[in-house]
């Protein structure tokens, strides 16, 4: 199979330099193990996340466009890979706005000129998620061929969060029939981890809100939302919740601990990035994929499963 995204510009975003560092590490290691090259976008900036977007969406469009401009105009790439759902969502949104909203084009043009870099034009790059990067480059067969340490004894609930598929109109490549990603029932993570041997459980809250936006303003609501997701995963028979977003991942880990400390509500399900699980299946060590950098300790569990 031709590797569609053999070499792409890599936009880690702020979270992957902080709380999501193990996601950063495991993404890079998995890329190496699969022969997929990443080159980090030079001098990248924040995508505008929620903070800027809530105040002025057009500034967020500009900030995201700058990242794409550097990748396209200064580095010569036609693809930017963003593993964080927030960054992925914002770059896709900026792309959509620049394609459809003349006012956004004007603001981005003015700010780019003022900042002294080339203005990004819609269509110069394709923004993809880490799931697209691996799935569309190697497919399930490509993963199966490379598995050294099957995840066969793992029951996994794949949790995509709410920004990976919404709003639908900024993801025109999804819902395109067989093989494409679905915005209603996403399955790329299920496909990849299934190919690595895992048993994916039926999990009804795979795109439900994790309460990330409430974390600071109303921690109790976030804890309740997270614990409901965790309880649903456990009731589905899952031992692990696989994640693909640093905000969701941190929220699940931290509120799982908070629930136990404050409410005495204990749960055993492990929260692990899909890139960490995939890395273990490809024969990487727990340290290489940053298991030690996760908030909660899953080493004992991984040893028990023969994965560490």
């Amino acid at each position, binding site marked *: 199979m031709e590797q569609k995204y053999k070499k792409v510009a890599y936009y880690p975003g702020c979270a992957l330099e902080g709380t999501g560092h193990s996601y950063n590490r495991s993404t890079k290691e998995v890329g190496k193990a699969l022969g997929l090259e990443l080159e980090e976008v030079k001098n990248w900036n924040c995508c505008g996340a929620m903070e800027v977007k809530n105040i002025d969406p057009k500034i967020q469009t500009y900030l995201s466009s700058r990242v794409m401009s550097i990748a396209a105009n200064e580095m010569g790439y036609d693809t930017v890979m963003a593993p964080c759902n927030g960054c992925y969502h914002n770059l896709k949104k900026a792309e959509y706005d620049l394609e459809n909203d003349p006012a956004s084009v004007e603001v981005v043009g003015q700010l780019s000129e003022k900042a002294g870099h080339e203005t990004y034009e819609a269509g110069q790059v394709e923004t993809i998620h880490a799931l697209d990067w691996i799935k569309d480059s190697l497919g399930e067969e490509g993963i199966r061929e490379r598995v050294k340490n099957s995840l066969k004894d793992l029951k996994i609930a794949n949790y995509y969060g709410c920004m990976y598929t919404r709003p639908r109109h900024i993801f025109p490549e999804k819902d395109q029939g067989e093989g494409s990603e679905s915005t209603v029932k996403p399955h790329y993570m299920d496909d990849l981890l299934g190919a690595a041997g895992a048993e994916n459980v039926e999990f009804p809250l795979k795109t439900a809100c994790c309460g990330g936006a409430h974390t600071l303003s109303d921690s109790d609501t976030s804890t309740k*939302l997270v614990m409901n997701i965790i309880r649903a995963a456990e009731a589905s028979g899952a031992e692990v919740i696989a994640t693909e977003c640093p905000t969701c991942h941190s929220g699940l880990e931290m509120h799982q601990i908070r629930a136990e400390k404050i409410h005495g509500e204990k749960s055993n399900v492990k929260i692990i990035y899909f890139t960490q699980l995939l890395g273990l299946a490809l024969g990487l060590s727990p340290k290489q994929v940053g298991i030690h950098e996760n908030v909660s300790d899953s080493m004992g569990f991984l040893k028990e499963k023969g994965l560490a």
Partner: protein
Amino acid sequence: MRPLADIEAGIDYLERNAARPAEAAAEFLKFGEEIVEHWLTAHDKAPTDALKEGFRLLALHRQAAQGDPSFNACRETCRELVYYFNLITLDPLHGETNRRLAMMAMVARHLYLFITGKMQVAELGDFCCASRPLRTNAN
């Protein structure tokens, strides 16, 4: 439309006491409708009686999401409620029915938590105890 606190208590109760699966599934679906009705009413909108794909819950969700794209973060949660309702009512004697009911309770609870969380942030709704600190601070 029952008060939000009663809906929350109702979900908890039904999760533990669902003797008749089809009736319980219908009640969970009704809870879902009422939760979205609360959101609409708090925004001075009259909840629709229309159906979308045969379900009022989906029509209510559609109505609530108009002009508020972030409300779509619970779109699939509403759809999951409908999915489990269909599974349970089409074959209440299925061996998986108890597990499906448990899932439906969790999905209904998620919808409740998501929407009431949004209402608290917006300082809306009838749950004065839960939102009092936020309101007090805002004043």
